């Protein structure tokens, strides 16, 4: 697969993915908006630069693996996979519809390029750790990435996975924590404490790098650093803004699980104008 090498082209791709996300969600009439918009720069950086993958060789044993633990962020990953050539872009508009391959939450069996099904929180990092363990057993050098939401650090099973990966020094494992500070019931620290997140990971034997999750250069550099660290798993705490790119959604936790056109807020335009307004802002 041909990589995008300039920051400008990657930024444009992130913007395209955001447009895909709001369009497909508005068409579906339900789904999660804030998280996927906040992850667009990470998705663009990973699928169009960092990952060693090729849609023509989906099952290449030496490919990099990107797992997603927070299955509700499906729209951004579907958009990235489609734009990367894993399936037709036109199919994005079938999201959440009867008979569609694009299920509401990420489905490995139906969507080409998806490494594992995900939905119930607190499971994906374990799956990624199992993958990294298998790579170590087989002497493979591919990198295993796992995108984890900050909210799912409430799950005890997430910490079982963190402990396991640290204990076995799974050096080819990189967790990318989407630190967007929101979850369904409100700001993360109000719902249940996650801090000090960096120190928690470090205490379990991980190397931690904090980055701006909207700075594509930082994302790429951190992934390269993570690959080079060796000896231990690496956690990239990516600080992101939920709803990034759409001013009436940015930072507002109420857009966590609502599609454009589905919520009245003080800042938002009328429901029937929300998609149009979002797309206008995402014009490049």
């Amino acid at each position, binding site marked *: 697969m041909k990589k995008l090498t300039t920051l400008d082209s990657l930024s444009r791709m992130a913007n395209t993915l955001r447009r895909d996300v709001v369009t497909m969600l508005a068409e579906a009439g339900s789904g999660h908006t804030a998280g996927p918009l906040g992850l667009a720069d990470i998705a663009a950086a990973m699928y169009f630069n960092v990952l060693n993958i090729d849609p023509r060789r989906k099952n290449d044993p030496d490919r990099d693996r990107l797992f997603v633990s927070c299955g509700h962020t499906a729209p951004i990953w579907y958009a990235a996979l489609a734009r990367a050539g894993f399936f037709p872009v036109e199919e994005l508009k079938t999201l959440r519809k009867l008979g569609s391959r694009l299920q509401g939450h990420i489905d490995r069996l139906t969507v080409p390029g998806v490494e594992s099904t995900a939905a119930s929180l607190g499971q994906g990092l374990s*799956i990624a750790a*199992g993958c990294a*363990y298998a790579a170590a057993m087989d002497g493979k050098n591919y990198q295993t990435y796992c995108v984890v939401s900050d909210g799912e650090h409430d799950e005890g099973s997430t910490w079982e996975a963190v402990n396991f990966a640290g*204990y076995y020094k799974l050096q080819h494992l990189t967790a990318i924590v989407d630190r967007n500070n929101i979850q369904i019931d409100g700001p993360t620290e109000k719902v249940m404490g996650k801090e000090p997140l960096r120190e928690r990971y470090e205490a379990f034997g991980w190397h931690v790098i904090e980055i701006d999750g909207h700075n594509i250069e930082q994302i790429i550099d951190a992934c390269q650093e993570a690959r080079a660290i060796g000896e231990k798993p690496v956690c990239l705490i990516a600080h992101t803004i939920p709803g990034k790119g759409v001013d009436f959604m940015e930072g507002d936790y109420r857009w966590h699980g609502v599609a454009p056109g589905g919520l009245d807020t003080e800042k938002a335009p009328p429901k029937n104008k929300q998609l149009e307004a979002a797309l206008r802002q995402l014009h490049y």
Partner: protein
Amino acid sequence: MLTKESHLKRNIFGKDIEMAPTRDGYGIGLVEVAEKNVNVVALSADLTESTRAAKFRDLYPDRFIQMGVAEQNMVTVAVGLALQGKIPFVSTYAVFSPGRTWDQIRISVCYNNANVKLAGHHAGLSVGPDGATHQALEDLALTRVLPRLTVLAPCDAEEARKATHAAAAIKGPVYLRFSREKSPVFTTAQTPFTVGKARVLHDGKDAVIIACGPLVYEALVAADRLVEKGISVRVINMASIKPMDEETVERAARECRAVVTAEEHQVAGGLGGAVAETLARSYPVPVEMVGMRDSFGESGQPEELWRKYRLNAAAMVDAVIKVIKRKH
């Protein structure tokens, strides 16, 4: 009469019959499948000896993963291994997995169709002195409702060995149910075992006992005793809980017209429930269920518990007499 084609041991009611827990058959089978296939790996949550994964660990240390007391992570790490081509066997007590790990099994194993083999140990009341907390009496109900999951409950150590081989050969998730306590090893290497097939071990026409796990032997004892009373009882080993051999169940109902189910499990949702569901759809006849009736177990010796909770041959004799009286 014992059926010839089941190739059971001779003199299975003799005092010198070999005794072994079904978990021993798992331990032997695990090593055998590991020898044949380098992709077989084993995971244990700090219960390696008692789940009989120790021999595998000693022979194949590089393919054994100690997971600590973290069952949820164990199941999902196994998914990650399976997605990369490994065939992970996950061993712990059934009360913990599927007990604690049902969400992981539902989504990450079954919905994901990951090639994970779940070994649930210490199932049934015969766990004994450890008491109700460790006696899994609900695991069949938890597993048999999950799409894509094969559910096997072998009747003795030899069949447990075969079930372990069968699990490795299946491409997809499998749940295996094992007991802690020794029970008679009455099948042989020649006894057929096929996933999805029930086996008639004892011929009869007045009633049929459909059993799984160590209670299959008790069912044979009950059938033998009933011969003296002039009652002819068929005994079916239903090791394959899912897929269930509905054809054999229906034929037995048509020919015997009275059914008794027997399991070390809650009758609700277990083998009793599964057989009743099948018969309600195909050929309804009176059914009596030997099993746990909406209660937990308690500490005690396995035999004492079976007697108190009516899970033994004597209970099955009574159930057969009762069900025959209810015949249409």
